[in-house]
């Protein structure tokens, strides 16, 4: 069962890696949440934010998550272009 012993450094290409780029699902999920929270923050009334000390944190957090998620998508996109080119 141990017939596959090789030295550490040369294994990089084994089984082609799991090529699903994790940046994509993270990017889509976070930017999706960003859009949801931003829109929800825009349509909800001010009274709802009494508990969050009067701050419309849905709006702020939505924009922040959109930025983070967008960053992941951009990174995945750039990487894909680099590979193609």
């Amino acid at each position: 069962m141990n017939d596959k012993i090789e030295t550490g450094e040369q294994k990089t290409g084994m089984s082609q890696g799991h090529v699903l780029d994790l940046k994509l699902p993270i990017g889509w999920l976070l930017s999706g949440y960003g859009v949801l929270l931003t829109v929800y923050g825009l349509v909800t009334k001010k009274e709802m934010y009494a508990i969050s000390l009067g701050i419309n944190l849905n709006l702020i957090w939505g924009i922040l998550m959109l930025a983070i998620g967008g960053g992941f998508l951009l990174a995945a996109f750039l990487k894909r272009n680099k590979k193609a080119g």
Partner: protein
Amino acid sequence: MPPVITLNAIDYLIIGAYISVMILVGFSLKKYMKTGEDFFLSGRSLPGWITGLAFLSANLGALEVIGMVANSAKYGIATVHFYWVGAIPAMVFLGVFMMPFYYGSRVRTVPEYLKLRYNEATRGLNAISFAIMTVLMSGISLYAMALLLKLMLGWSLTGSILFAAVVVLLYVFWGGLSSSIYNEVIQFFLIWLGLLPIVFLGLKEVGGFQGLMAKLQEPLLHSIKYLGTSNNPLGVDWFGVVMGLGFVLSFGYWTTDFLVVQRALASKNLNSARMTPIIASFPKMLVPIIVVIPGLVALLVLPEFGQAALPTADYNSALILLMKHYLPNGLLGLAITALLASFMSGMAGNVTAFNCIWTYDIYGTYIKKGRSDAHYLKVGKYTTVIGIAISVGTAYIVQSFPNLMDYMQLIFSFFNAPLFATFLLGMFWKGATAWGGFWGLLVGIATAAGHYILYRAGILTYHSDMAANFYQAIWAWSADFVVTIAVSLFTVKRDPKELAGLVFGLTAKPKAEARWYARPAVWGTLAIIVAVILNVIFW
């Protein structure tokens, strides 16, 4: 009792989006699962940042987060010891010194290393105890999750248990360890984004960190200052903290628990494997931001934890009450999703570790030896189903006998405490013999159990249960260490040639070292320096 928190459509939408993404990720990984190594070790193909974040998240379960917020409310800033003393040194040690033997020897599991270094009996002892513990643990956390969701949201126990089990089953069955690791990385981002709003709002309300410090009692504000004696909120002296928590328990967990080590073994090369725990150590140092600050804020803003209510306060509810106190719908859904994600990834982590140990170390060693890789892949996939079924069963048993939970955790602590001595001697002393390893481990486990009995019987007394726990670990470790050496002196030594690649001094140094800025030793040193500085700041 009405549920603490009321969710609305937007919150459910956020939770649903997470579940859908997880299932999609699992499904899209399905086509890569061609060999046993693909399924059990992600084909040893993942980059360091992914395995590093997964390494951290595998340990950042929801119970851990809720428990650490509770600890912070109870013990104050001293809770940072669980991070800066009780994790960073062990993580760096694993990456710099131990990973070359784990990854370099190409073992697939931690017990397999014990088999190569010591003998079959040592592997058997470790593999069987680990497999049982892991699958029962997964059941315990499944029950804990369902109970929390019931109290918090009013969801039915059975519904939560079955739903979580099916989701985890789907994505682990399809994507094996890769699914589990990808979920952990996503959880890493969710837990920060879900909990930071509480930190910001909490700090804003109490007047910033300065306000927090000004309003709390002095003993809650220092990590080290009051450790001279055990007369501090933790009830443990410096020796117990440094040796018990910082050395024995932390090294035992971080360097030998297959649940975390498996993440590093999934790396694409030795350098990434060594960087895995070191990359994880940096965000690990920052975790106190999302657990300690909320714990301290809870003391000031929640009436439940006001001075008058102290003796009866249920600190475990601190995080949930803070969520209710601060978060509007929307962000509330995000925070609940973060907790759900860490519950599910915790369960997936247990199931994938159980899978791998069961298939390679138990089934492939004692039941059906020498079958094809395709056979073991199939066994692994169906073990997922069985492992989850046992977890669900355990969850229901624990529901009827809640005391079982404490007993199980107790028994687990007997097995974990001495293990690091066996590994330390195995990796760094070529004189440790096969039976020395076995008897050392067995006596260590027995010592932990014996210490517990003496403590319960009142023959040994400590300032707090935590102190008893730390000292139990110290005794178990010492017994293992001494017995392994003693038995080794009288039993047959292994041929040094057989130990090449497994023991320090008999292993060639890796030829191609990475450039200086990618070297584990450089980053490991940096991690230790930052941890020391943090300890000094919060002295």
